[in-house]
């Protein structure tokens, strides 16, 4: 849920459509990546995320952080 909170904070009031949440998970982070992916799949299927997907990036060490979001502003490319 903390990952969802961080994503919501970064999306801000404009609330563009979230497409991807990228999370770095260290090998020593104490987090099972497949379990995290499963949880995020459930959370990201609900509003306000409307079907975004998670991208789990395995890293050495104990890092556990949201690294980037991919959003769709819903307007045509220039």
């Amino acid at each position: 849920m903390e990952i969802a909170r961080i994503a919501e904070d970064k999306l801000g009031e404009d609330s563009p459509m979230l497409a991807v949440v990228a999370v770095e998970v260290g090998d020593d982070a104490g987090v099972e990546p497949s379990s995290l992916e499963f949880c995020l799949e459930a959370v990201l299927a609900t509003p306000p995320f409307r079907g975004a997907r998670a991208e789990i990036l395995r890293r050495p060490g104990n890092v556990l952080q949201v690294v980037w979001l991919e959003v769709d502003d819903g307007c045509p490319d220039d």
Partner: protein
Amino acid sequence: MAVRTIDVRERVMARNDELATRVRARLAAHGVTAFNLVSSPGAGKTMLLERTLAAVGDELAISVVTGDVQTQNDADRLAVHTSRLVQAVVTGGACHLDALQILTSLDAIDLDRTRLLFIENVGNLVCPANWDLGELAKIVLFTVTEGEDKPLKYPKMFQNARYAVITKTDLLPYVPFDVELAIANAHRINPDLQFLQLSATTGAGLTEWFDFLRGAVPAPVA
């Protein structure tokens, strides 16, 4: 469609850690030492606290926050042994306590009359390892009915704990548990981990446990 990337780089635990810092500051302002008791389910956290409250609860002015996924059974058990408030946190499904829950619990505890705070975490050797609750140290309980390889299977918990207590030592004659091997395994993960061994049932090792607690708690203000 205009797809863009937002750089975030925010640690997932950042907000919890900020709240844990507030817990730590509040406890320090009142001269309270806090220990976070962690273990797998059934390792004997509650029974050890029962014996501790009964023996030195008044002497060390101990308050307790308990966390359980459901029920406040542990808090009810502990309340029998103390006149002080036992604050129950029912996590409602969450597998660990977080710093916000502890910060909120402190509002209900008379910190001026507390010298030692025990946080009895949810029984789980995985998730509680990651959550700083503002404690002085994590104490991991490790019972002789568990395998000696628990520290190797759950390294993060043993890495993040400062103390380990081997519990239920009265069962050692009946189970194939090699204490020395268990300690060696734990020290492979965390060479600085300090061990105590006890049985809350027979009382063996409790004197050392109480002395350890006395040494961890600042002297009362005259």
